[in-house]
């Protein structure tokens, strides 16, 4: 491409990105003459240059836009949103033409007559009779914006210590500019394009084309006071990125060579090279640092597009949105910057589209009409943190849950055990979108998963905090640079490896002579460290570097040849160190080192044979054929020239089976844990034709095998003498014919499920008991047949889950009623059962009913509160914890906080029962905490709690 054109494109796209921002600002402060002047000048520059380069289409659009801006500036046309939109539209057209230019070096075909006509109309629109165009002062031809890199030329700006060319002093800074100036460009040559910006009173920016300096000589700025804020840090030079990258590579090589020299010097104490080498050392370090800095860019560059984006969105969506950007100067590696640009834009767009509500909704929710999207960037601990916060509606748990179930990402039963936070994490799953309608802005279902993948690709993490009704905050943590990391060099099995220093917490010397001892539990090493047990991973074993008799299945089998080779080599090279360390660890005596690493919240120890020093290493990606070994994150060349693999602590944790340690895996882990917890033991039986039947095992008191001959008929129902009493029997199959069954001499026995409560019991006759399975179930309710709760897939087959309550009443119509009689129960307790899952409601209600409680069940905490407000009273409340909307903890607080029910005891029923959960439950006001599906514990807890309350009363 023509150098001149290339330079023009670079510069113009820079100008355009500044214009985007400035125009949005202008809309907010329409009467800022400084801003207007600046905008005008930028557009004018574009127009002037394309006239010079012979780009008529571009020129005509820019000219029409400039006209309108001129009128703005002269106060002849009011700055309105509509007018700004029009100008932005013309900028978009300019961008479109520019991209065409870049591809073909020709202006793309097209007609902008309509746009130009509208621009002209806008320019004339409000001017009464002012026919003569306002005299346009000519500002400096070259206005180069600061915001770089967002360009087609792929260049980077670096600060320059001294101006390379002397800036011409403006003759009369105050004077309005004079002549029509066409910028002069030096004849293009092959040298790289450098664009210098030199501070001056006026904003004059000479252009150096490969050293030949062609100044926009004599150009004066219309208004010397117009200093763009961005031009304060103005000593910069434009260097092409490949050049910098090359420089970076060379410096890396230099550093490595320096390290090599230093290592040689260590063995030669008295050498005349010592002093010069020290200087070389320092200079190299500084050089490296300097070159690293050239890669750094303020994050503001990635944000440059956002004001325009938000502005357009708020117009499109009829919302009022403010964008606040904090920490724009925070610097990070250019490469990282490029990679997070798109995810950031996406997330901001999401916040504006999904997060911020319509103004009337906001007012209704008691918020200010205008929503705020806040971006905040700062350094913390070698990472850049970027927060994207909005004060919108937050993530709606209910909608998300619904979507999760619809999309088959999890079952209802699984969700019941998840916290709100965990449910919210589902938005990072592929193919998930909660937007009710696909807008042209977002909601296409590709999104957050891509965002997360992109961020994780560069070693970052993304966290989500959201409170429904109050907004969402995303926190992105990304490493400062991907290029150079400090790493600890360790040895295992005769090979050296690098562990990134950032994940190393401490080094512990363990073994005989040390205070720390490695203990073995069933062959698994653990370390006692400051009153904590630390799980240990043996690196040699993990990497199959040694054969070990008591291999603890840490790893899959090694590839045969490799292991043999490894063994041979380690035996040959380091017979003592390698073998010795292994024995020592196994024996729990002797010395070895434990590198304590931290991945997310999880700390673990890595046993290594030796620890060397730390070294700055240049991370290089591993060859494609090695990419699937997740234990390595890259490789590098050490000071001594040898190649070394870089260990990935995430990968180590994953390889040892500890998945779900990194943030990224938290959700998956939580799920697997949940589904563990949510397992329900079900008794499967067959009766009559059709699908197998299932009943929760918790409801069944005993299983009996009875002889049909023992069945008697009393008062039209079947009974059997059972433990000295008469137990009513109900055939599950309604068509069961006792007489006919007795004829069948072959099969005189039947299985009976005994449901019991105190001294009462009933038997359900079934054909055959198949199995007891334990698995998470999701019942699809069908209200069609009495006696059946619904169907579920159990043990791979569609199975009817039966409603035991139905059969209980069938056996004894007054089963539930009698228990309230004073003879058996002094007083029937009223229980309010709150659980969002129909399955659990249906399961627990019979348990409680059978136990003599009068049960009222509701599906949400809100309904429960509604009952309270309606004047209902209960003796005790049993509530689930994880519920959509108000969860159990909030519910308990409400109950205890209100006056009417404040003395009503409340028992938590949850599948989560860690000590932490218990504590939290107590704090929220729960009197007791029972695990779901523990029938006896629940009943025990209820009677105990009631007794306590009665005792206290």
């Amino acid at each position: 491409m023509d150098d001149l054109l290339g330079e023009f494109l670079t510069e113009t796209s820079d100008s355009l990105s500044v214009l985007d921002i400035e125009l949005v600002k202008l809309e907010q402060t329409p009467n800022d003459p400084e801003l207007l002047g600046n905008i005008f000048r930028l557009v004018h520059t574009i127009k002037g240059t394309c006239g010079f380069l012979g780009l008529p289409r571009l020129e005509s659009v820019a000219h029409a836009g400039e006209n309108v801006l001129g009128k703005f500036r002269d106060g002849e046309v009011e700055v309105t949103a509509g007018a700004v939109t029009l100008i932005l539209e013309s900028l978009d057209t300019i961008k479109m033409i520019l991209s065409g230019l870049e591809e073909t070096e020709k202006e793309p075909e097209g007609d902008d007559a309509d746009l130009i006509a509208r621009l002209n109309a806008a320019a004339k629109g409000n001017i009464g009779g002012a026919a003569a165009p306002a005299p346009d002062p000519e500002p400096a031809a070259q206005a180069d914006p600061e915001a770089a890199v967002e360009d087609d030329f792929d260049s980077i700006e670096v600060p320059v210590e001294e101006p390379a060319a002397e800036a011409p002093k403006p003759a009369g800074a105050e004077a309005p500019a004079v002549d029509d100036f066409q910028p002069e460009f030096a004849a293009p040559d092959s040298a790289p394009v450098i664009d210098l910006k030199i501070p001056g009173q006026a904003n004059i920016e000479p252009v150096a084309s490969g050293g030949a300096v062609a100044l926009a000589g004599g150009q004066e700025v219309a208004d010397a006071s117009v200093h763009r804020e961005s031009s304060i840090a103005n000593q910069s030079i434009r260097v092409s990125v490949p050049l910098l990258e090359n420089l970076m590579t060379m410096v890396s090589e230099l550093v490595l060579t320096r390290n090599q020299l230093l290592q040689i010097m260590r063995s030669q104490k008295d050498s005349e090279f010592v002093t010069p080498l020290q200087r070389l050392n320092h200079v190299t370090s500084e050089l490296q640092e300097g070159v690293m800095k050239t890669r750094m860019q303020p994050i503001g560059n990635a944000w440059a597009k956002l004001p325009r984006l938000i502005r357009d969105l708020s117009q499109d969506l009829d919302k009022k949105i403010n964008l606040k950007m904090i920490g724009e100067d925070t610097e990070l590696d250019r490469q990282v910057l490029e990679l997070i640009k798109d995810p950031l834009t996406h997330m901001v767009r999401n916040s504006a589209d999904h997060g911020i509500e319509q103004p009337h909704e906001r007012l209704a929710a008691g918020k200010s009409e205008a929503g705020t999207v806040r971006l905040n960037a700062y350094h913390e601990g070698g990472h850049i943190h970027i927060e994207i916060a909005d004060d919108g509606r937050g993530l709606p748990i209910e909608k998300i849950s619904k979507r999760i179930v619809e999309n088959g990402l999890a079952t209802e039963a699984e969700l019941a055990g998840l916290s709100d936070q965990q449910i919210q994490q589902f938005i990072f799953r592929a193919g998930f979108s909660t937007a009710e309608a696909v807008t042209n802005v977002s909601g296409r279902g590709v999104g957050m998963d891509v965002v997360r993948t992109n961020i994780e690709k560069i070693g970052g993490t993304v966290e989500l905090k959201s409170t429904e009704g109050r907004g969402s905050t995303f926190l992105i943590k990304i490493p400062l640079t991907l290029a150079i990391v400090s790493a600890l060099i360790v040895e295992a099995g005769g090979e050296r490896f690098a562990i990134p220093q950032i994940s190393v917490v401490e080094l512990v010397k363990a073994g005989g002579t040390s205070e720390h001892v490695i203990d073995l539990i069933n062959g698994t090493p653990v370390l006692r460290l400051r009153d904590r047990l630390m799980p240990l991973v043996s690196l040699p074993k993990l990497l199959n570097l040694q054969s070990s008799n008591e291999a603890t299945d840490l790893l899959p089998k090694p590839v045969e040849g490799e292991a043999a080779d490894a063994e041979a080599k380690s035996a040959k090279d380091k017979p003592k160190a390698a073998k010795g360390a292994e024995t020592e660890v196994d024996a729990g005596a002797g010395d070895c080192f434990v590198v304590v690493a931290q991945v997310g919240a999880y700390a673990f120890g890595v046993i290594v044979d030796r620890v060397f020093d730390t070294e700055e290493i240049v991370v290089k990606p591993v060859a494609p054929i090695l990419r699937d070994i997740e234990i390595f994150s890259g490789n590098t060349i050490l000071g001594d020239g040898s190649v070394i693999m870089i260990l990935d602590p995430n990968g180590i944790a994953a390889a040892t089976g500890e998945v779900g340690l990194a943030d990224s895996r938290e959700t998956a882990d939580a799920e697997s844990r949940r589904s563990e917890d949510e397992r329900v033991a079900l008794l499967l039986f067959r009766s009559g034709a059709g699908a197998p039947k299932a009943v929760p095992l918790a409801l069944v008191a005993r299983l009996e095998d009875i002889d049909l001959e023992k069945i008697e008929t009393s008062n039209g129902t079947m009974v059997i003498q059972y433990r000295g009493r008469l137990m009513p029997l109900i055939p599950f199959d309604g068509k069961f014919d006792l007489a006919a069954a007795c004829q069948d001499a072959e099969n005189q026995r039947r299985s009976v499920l005994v449901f019991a409560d105190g001294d009462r019991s009933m038997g359900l006759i079934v054909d055959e008991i198949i199995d007891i399975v334990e698995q998470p179930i999701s019942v699809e309710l069908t209200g069609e047949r009495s006696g059946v709760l619904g169907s579920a897939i159990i043990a791979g087959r569609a199975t009817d889950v039966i409603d035991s309550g139905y059969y209980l009443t069938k056996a004894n119509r007054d089963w539930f009623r009698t228990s309230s009689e004073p003879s058996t129960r002094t007083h029937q307790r009223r229980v309010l059962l709150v659980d969002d899952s129909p399955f659990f409601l249906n399961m627990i209600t019979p348990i409680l009913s059978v136990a003599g409680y009068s049960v009222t069940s509701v599906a949400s905490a809100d309904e429960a509160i509604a009952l309270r407000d309606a004047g209902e009273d209960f003796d005790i409340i049993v509530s689930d914890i994880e519920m959509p909307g108000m969860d159990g903890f909030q519910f308990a607080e409400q109950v205890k906080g209100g006056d009417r029910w404040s003395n009503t005891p409340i028992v938590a029923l949850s599948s989560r029962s860690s000590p932490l959960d218990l504590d939290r439950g107590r704090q929220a006001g729960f009197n007791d905490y029972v695990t779901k599906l523990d029938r006896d514990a629940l009943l025990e807890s209820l009677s105990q709690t009631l007794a306590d309350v009665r005792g206290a009363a």
Partner: protein
Amino acid sequence: MSNLVPAGGRSLAVTDDPAKKATVDYVTVMIDDQLFGIPVLQVQDVLAPQAITRIPLAPAEVAGSLNLRGRIVTAIDVRTRLGLPRRQSSERQMSVVVDMGGELYSLIVDGVGEVLTVQENAFERNLATLDPVWRKVSTGIYRLKEGLLVVLDVSRLLTLKGQEAA
């Protein structure tokens, strides 16, 4: 992941189907007494034995990685790749460095010979009776006076088991 080292301007064109040209140049290498040819334009370097860092958990064919003037090169043991017995440590070995998609690989062979210019009409497609692995990694065979020259297809040679789908 950072790739600070640009691939460089030396990315070499892969030779066209040998059958279409009048003559083709091959770097000849010897593996287990069989003559192989690697298209000369794909060869970057020929190396004497080097210090190689073994890579644990890597496929058996991967001998390790080495430092070639500041670039990390993955070493592939062609014997293992071809299913031949391992080299005795006393036997000599050489390496041919090839470029594949901007990455360098060092192919460990028994010996490297001269560059041979062969006539395309001496080319024959692989025989069906050849070992499946060999058939996969070679494009064909040249009938030469000195014997038969098996042409190695570098890209297929570097596609290891389990990665073929990728």
